[in-house]
C-alpha cells in the first residue's frame, strides 16, 4: 500500500495547450492514467457532435480529465495548511478529479437517451467493479474506491471535497470552459483562472472566493453564459445530435423487428436489449460507432441509410423556431402531412428543447436549490455573488429557453413526389 501512496522518482509532465503542463508526481495518479479504462477516454470526444459545427472540437475526455486533475492539484496546493482543509483528502480529490468522467460512453448524451443508460452509474460500476481502475484504487485502501466513487456521486461526507469537483464553480467547469473555447476556436470561454485559484478559500462545506477576486469570478460566469449560447447550444450541433439520436433509435427499432442487417451489429446487441455488461460497455467508443454509421449507409432500410448518409456527409436537418404554446394546433397537422408525404415524422420531424441539453446557467441558489457562489468579505462574512455583482445579477437565473423544430428541408424541396402536400408542410413551417 505504501508504494502506491508514494511519489514517483521523477515528476511526469504532459504538455497541454490549455494549462501548458500537467504535472504528475503521485504514483497512484500515474497508474490510474495507465489503465485501459482511462485510455479509452482518448476515443471519446469531449463535445460529441460539436465537431460538425466547430471543426476544431476534436478534443477528448482524456484531455479534459487530465485538465480537471491539474486544476484540482493546484487548488489543493493552495489549500494546503489552511483551516478546513484536510490533507488526508488529497489523493481522494485528485483521483476523483481524474476519474469524474470515466463512465462516459461515445456520444453519451444521445446514447443515454436512446438506450436508457446513465454515465454516472457506469462511473460507479467502473470504479467499484471489475476493472483495472478498481485494482489500482484498491491498492490505496480497501475503502478507497468507495470514497472516490462517493465524491463523484456527490454523496461523500466531506462536502468541501465534493464542491471542488461539482459545484457552480469547480475544477470540472473551469477546465471544460477553457478547453472547449480553445479547441472550438471561439474567444468567449477565457477567464482569469490563476486569479480565481489564488482567491479560493476552503470553508467547512464548500470553497468560497475572497471578495477582492470578484471580478475574476464575474468573468468566469460571463464565459459560462457566452459558451452556452455560442457553442454548447449551437443549433447546428443540435441538428447533428437529433440525427445521431434518430440513427440509434432506428437501429434499435429494426433490431426489435428482427430486421436482417447486412452485417450483424454485434457491439449493439446488449445495448438494444438493455442488458449491458461492464465489459461490453468498455468496448464501445466513437470509432466503433462511426464504423457502424459507415456500413449502415449500405443498408436496405431507407431511413437508416438516409440518416447515416446525413450524419457522415453532414447533410443535417434544417430548423425553425417553434412555440409549442402558440403552435400546438400545428403539430397534429404537421404529423398528418408528413405521413401523407411518406416521410416518417417519428424520424424526420423533431422538436428539440433547451432542456434537452445538459448545460446549465449560474443560479443564485434561492430556496435551497443549488449552492450558490459565495464571496468572503474582509470581515469574514459570506455573501452570495449575484447580490454583490451587478454583472452576475443581470444574467444569473435568467435563462432563455427555446424550442426548435428540425426537419429535412431537402426532402421537402424535392417536389417530384407529393408536391402539394410538401408545399402545405412548408407553408406551416415557415408561416
Amino acid at each position, binding site marked *: 500500500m505504501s508504494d502506491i501512496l508514494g511519489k514517483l522518482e521523477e515528476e511526469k509532465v504532459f504538455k497541454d495547450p490549455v494549462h501548458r503542463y500537467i504535472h504528475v508526481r503521485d504514483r497512484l495518479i500515474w497508474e490510474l492514467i495507465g489503465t485501459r479504462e482511462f485510455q479509452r477516454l482518448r476515443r471519446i470526444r469531449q463535445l460529441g457532435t460539436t465537431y460538425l459545427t466547430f471543426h476544431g472540437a476534436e478534443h477528448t475526455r482524456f484531455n479534459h480529465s487530465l485538465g480537471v486533475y491539474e486544476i484540482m492539484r493546484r487548488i489543493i496546493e493552495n489549500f494546503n495548511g489552511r483551516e478546513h482543509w484536510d490533507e488526508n483528502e488529497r489523493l481522494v480529490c485528485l483521483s476523483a478529479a481524474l476519474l469524474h468522467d470515466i463512465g462516459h460512453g461515445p456520444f453519451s448524451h444521445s446514447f443515454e437517451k436512446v438506450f436508457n443508460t446513465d454515465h454516472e452509474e457506469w462511473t460507479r460500476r467502473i470504479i467499484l467493479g471489475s476493472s483495472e481502475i478498481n485494482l489500482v484504487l484498491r491498492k490505496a485502501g480497501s475503502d478507497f474506491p468507495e470514497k472516490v466513487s462517493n465524491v463523484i456521486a456527490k*454523496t461523500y461526507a466531506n462536502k468541501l471535497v465534493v464542491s471542488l469537483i461539482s459545484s457552480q464553480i469547480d475544477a470540472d467547469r473551469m477546465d471544460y470552459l477553457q478547453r472547449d473555447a480553445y479547441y472550438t476556436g471561439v474567444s468567449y470561454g477565457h477567464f482569469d483562472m490563476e486569479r480565481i485559484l489564488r482567491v479560493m478559500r476552503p470553508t467547512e462545506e464548500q470553497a468560497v472566493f475572497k471578495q477582492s477576486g470578484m471580478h475574476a469570478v464575474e468573468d468566469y460566469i460571463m464565459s459560462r453564459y457566452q459558451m452556452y449560447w455560442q457553442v454548447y447550444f449551437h443549433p447546428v450541433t443540435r441538428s447533428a445530435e437529433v440525427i445521431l439520436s434518430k440513427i440509434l433509435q432506428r437501429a434499435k427499432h429494426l433490431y426489435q423487428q428482427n430486421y436482417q442487417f447486412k452485417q450483424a451489429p454485434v457491439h449493439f446487441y446488449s445495448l438494444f436489449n438493455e442488458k449491458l455488461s461492464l465489459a461490453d460497455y468498455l468496448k464501445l467508443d466513437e470509432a466503433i460507432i462511426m464504423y457502424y454509421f459507415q456500413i449502415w449507409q449500405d443498408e436496405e432500410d431507407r431511413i437508416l441509410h438516409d440518416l447515416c448518409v446525413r450524419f457522415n456527409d453532414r447533410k443535417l436537418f434544417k430548423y425553425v423556431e417553434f412555440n409549442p404554446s402558440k403552435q400546438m394546433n400545428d403539430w397534429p397537422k404537421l404529423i398528418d402531412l408528413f405521413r401523407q408525404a411518406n416521410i416518417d415524422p417519428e424520424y424526420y420531424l423533431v422538436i428539440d428543447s433547451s432542456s434537452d441539453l445538459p448545460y446549465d446557467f449560474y443560479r443564485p441558489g434561492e430556496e435551497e436549490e443549488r449552492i450558490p457562489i459565495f464571496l468572503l468579505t474582509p470581515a469574514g462574512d459570506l455573501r452570495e455573488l449575484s447580490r454583490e455583482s451587478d454583472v452576475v445579477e443581470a444574467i444569473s437565473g435568467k435563462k432563455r429557453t427555446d424550442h426548435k423544430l428540425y426537419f429535412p428541408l431537402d426532402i421537402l424541396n424535392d417536389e417530384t413526389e407529393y408536391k402539394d402536400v410538401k408545399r402545405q408542410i412548408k407553408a406551416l413551417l415557415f408561416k
Partner: protein
Amino acid sequence: MLNDHAKIMALIRDAGEVIGRKKLQKMIYIAKKINFPFQERYNFHFYGPYSEELTLRIEEMCNLGFVAETKEKKGGYFQYRYVLTEAGSNFLEISHLHMPKLKEFSLDINEKSSRFLELVSTLLYFDHLTQEEQIEKVHTLKGKLNYSETEISEAFDYIEQLKQFIQ
C-alpha cells in the same frame, strides 16, 4: 409533442398547487422512483436528489405560459408557487397522457412538507442499501437537518404506503 413536459404539467394540475421548487423536485423524484414515467435525470446534490433537467423544463413551461410561477418572500429567502394555467390545461388536453393513479399520488404527496420529502427522497436515493445504511447516510449527508428517529420511522412508513401507487 413535449410529452415529458406534459407529465410534469399533469402532476401540477393534479396536485392543484405546488409550493416550493425543492418540493416539486422531490415530488417528481419520488414519483419516478415508484415508476411513474418521468424521464428527468437526477443526481445527488446538497439538498438531496435534484434534477437540472426538471428545473429547465419548469422554466420552459413558465416561459410558454403553461405553468404560472409566483415568487414570494418568505423569511430570508424567496419561495415559488406553481399552478397550471389555462393554456397548460389546453395543452394537456391534446397530449393524450395516460398516467393512472397520478391524481391520488399527487394529492397525497402534496400534503407532505418539503423537509419530510427531502428525507423520503434521500432514503429512496439509497434504497439499494440496507435500512441501517440508509439511516447512516441520512445522518452523514443531512446531519444539519437533525432528523429525529420518529421522522425517519415515519419516512419509512410513508415509503411503504407509496407502494399502493406503484406503476
